[in-house]
């Protein structure tokens, strides 16, 4: 697996920051916006630095979303040792695509300037640029379901493998900050002007973040054949639709409930088997309440330890599902539950208290990760220790 986000570049950097309880919520450095008052979680590297690190030609037409993707993709492929001798599909989740440059050059496009970025705008364009870092991919797919894109990429990859349409898949998502969606979220009045406080009674919105993460998935048989040691098992996953509202979750959290129960059922697990939930936990009034309601519906009085690591990484939107999948796997393999920062008192209606300080040396067998998107596109997955 590979990752880049505000916390750093690579799984070790991300793990160290989580372990040290050091969030990466700060002020805007790279994004050209007048909203400098809004805290965000930016990746430290500039586009130029990533281009250099990736050894791309300096004049390469590439936007920030695929650049972040390339960094994480390369790490994931390297760690897995996967080559194109295996029939591999790439499933990439993104929504921003090339918007970072389109919003900068949009008016110029009509005057015939910077037109090389027109073809770099759509989501699929970035997928292709990232995918080309791998020898030969058998197929490429791009998914865009807003904040659950990367989790749905993981689910699609798993279904492709199980149905025999691929032998391995590189799955995940990437998203850079853009002025477009920063202003979009701001117009919805769901951005906190302070570091976000997921699951807190006085939560006041989310902080946007950026990043990318990918996982290499394959059957146990395929891993064995090429002598690879899997990190964990993707034991369950489910996608459901809340079918309630474009930007709000239903009060009973039907979509999140169906996603979590669906994932448990696919994994053949009981709620009591889940040792930690990496929650969606954006910090908005609506999400955290509805997610809490749904968690209580699924787990009853025995809610496992849970936290939202968006208090460290910000909400990396289309990449969030993959960023948090990597964090979930780091938790599982290191026996460590990361903290939910900035929490002080529970939401009255639910009374749920997340893990507020990182906990080490715990035995984790099954970790659930939730990703819920605009449009009620809700997905959950479960990572399990290989028994």
């Amino acid at each position: 697996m590979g990752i880049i986000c505000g916390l750093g570049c690579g799984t070790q950097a991300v793990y160290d920051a989580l372990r040290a309880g050091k969030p990466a919520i700060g002020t805007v450095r790279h994004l050209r916006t007048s909203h400098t008052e809004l805290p965000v979680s930016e990746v430290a590297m500039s586009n130029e630095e990533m281009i250099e690190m990736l050894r791309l030609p300096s004049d390469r037409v590439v936007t920030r979303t695929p650049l972040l993707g390339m960094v994480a993709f390369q790490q994931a492929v390297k760690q897995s040792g996967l080559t194109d001798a295996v029939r591999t599909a790439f499933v990439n989740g993104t929504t921003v695509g090339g918007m970072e440059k389109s919003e900068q050059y949009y008016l110029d496009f009509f005057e015939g300037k910077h037109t090389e970025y027109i073809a770099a705008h759509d989501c699929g364009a970035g997928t292709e640029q990232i995918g080309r870092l791998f020898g030969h991919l058998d197929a490429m797919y791009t998914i865009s379901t807003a904040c659950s894109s990367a989790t749905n990429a993981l689910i699609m990859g798993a279904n492709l493998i199980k149905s025999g349409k691929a032998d391995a898949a590189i799955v995940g998502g990437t998203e850079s900050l853009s002025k477009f969606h920063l202003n979009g979220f701001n117009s919805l009045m769901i951005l906190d002007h302070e570091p976000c406080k997921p699951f807190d009674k006085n939560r006041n919105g989310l902080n946007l973040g950026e990043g990318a993460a990918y996982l290499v998935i394959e059957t146990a048989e395929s891993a064995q054949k090429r002598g690879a040691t899997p990190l964990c098992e993707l034991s369950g996953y489910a996608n459901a639709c809340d079918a309630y509202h474009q930007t709000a979750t239903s009060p009973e959290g039907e979509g999140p409930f169906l996603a979590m129960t669906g994932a448990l059922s696919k994994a053949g697990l009981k709620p009591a088997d889940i040792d930690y939930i990496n929650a969606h936990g954006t910090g908005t009034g609506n999400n955290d309440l509805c997610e809490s309601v749904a968690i209580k519906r699924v787990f009853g009085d025995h809610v496992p330890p849970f936290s939202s690591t968006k208090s460290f990484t910000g909400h990396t939107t289309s990449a969030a599902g993959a960023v948090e999948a990597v964090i979930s796997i780091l938790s599982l393999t290191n026996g460590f539950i990361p903290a939910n920062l900035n929490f002080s008192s529970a939401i009255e209606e639910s009374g749920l208290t997340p893990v507020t300080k990182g906990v080490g040396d715990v035995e984790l067998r099954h970790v659930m990760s939730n990703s819920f998107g605009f449009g009620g596109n809700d997905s959950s997955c479960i990572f399990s220790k290989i028994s």
Partner: protein
Amino acid sequence: MAVYIQSAAQITIQSPLCDDWFTSPIRREGRYFRSVEPDFKAFIDPMASRRMGRLLKRAIASAMTALDGYEAPLDAIVTGTGLGCIETTEKFLNAMLRDGEQALPPSFFMQSTHNTIGSVIAQRLKCHGYNNTFTHRGTSFDCALQDALAQFELNDISSALVCANDEMTEDYFQLFDQIGYWKAEEVTEAMFHHPTTEGSFAGEVSAAFLLNTQPTQQTLCRIEGLEVLFEPTDERFRQAVEALLGKADISREEVDAVVCGYNADRTNDEVYTRRLTPLFPQTTQIYYKHLFGEGFSASAMGYYVAATCLKRGEIPAHIRFKEGKTAQPKHILVYNHFQDKDHSIALLSC
């Protein structure tokens, strides 16, 4: 598990929500056409309609038409869209660039995400099932179909609505014009047969297909399989074709026609000839983009055309690109590619 196309509906630059294109097509010669829209009042109440962009209305009307009379539960809604609701995206972008980063209208942003389409259909149907959206350029619909087919194969679903939706705004037409997507001159039908330059002409497509596992009287055809490939070698392409035919237990000679995404762009069209000639030298070829235009969702109409031909048992003269044998069609391949990068090939049978 066998998967059937039970019904299909389209809103395109041909007469909407019907198959007039099969018997009396509207001739489309030009550079840019917008969809012919039905009366949306039958599908969406006027209050809701005012808040929706055009593409959302088309998506709902085509989906509801495909689902007309269908009572059973729907397990999945999978959407393909290259650009999503680009009209509302542009409205938000223009407002931001014109008025600065203050007091921007949230409704435009809410409709700008690509998954708005699939989720609005789900809200409309109160469908809590699987819901996913693919945004992979010219094969967005093919990717969506592959998602559904994988889940049918795994017995995870037994019904699905698979849709394709893209609009072409005037601004986007201009942007794509800047990078050579369209011909400088009006595209004529003759150019499809003898393409000498690059570029095509723009159309718009909203199409919806209801898939399930029980054939009925109204069933259009069976989907035997689909292969989605990235830059396949000739050998990989041949393998994929053989795999499709092998699964259906038919030979290459039994393929009655191949539907191809010819679009009058010389480079685009050569790919079809190059890939198909060695495998299907004598087979009838069908084209359809002369009727529906080019765009990220156009490939969906290849399936639509093939399914209609199988259901009606004939291939009308105006969609025959290359004449082969003229038997009543039983097996049709649908082959599309995007810039010779993403390829998709499906076998439909009746």
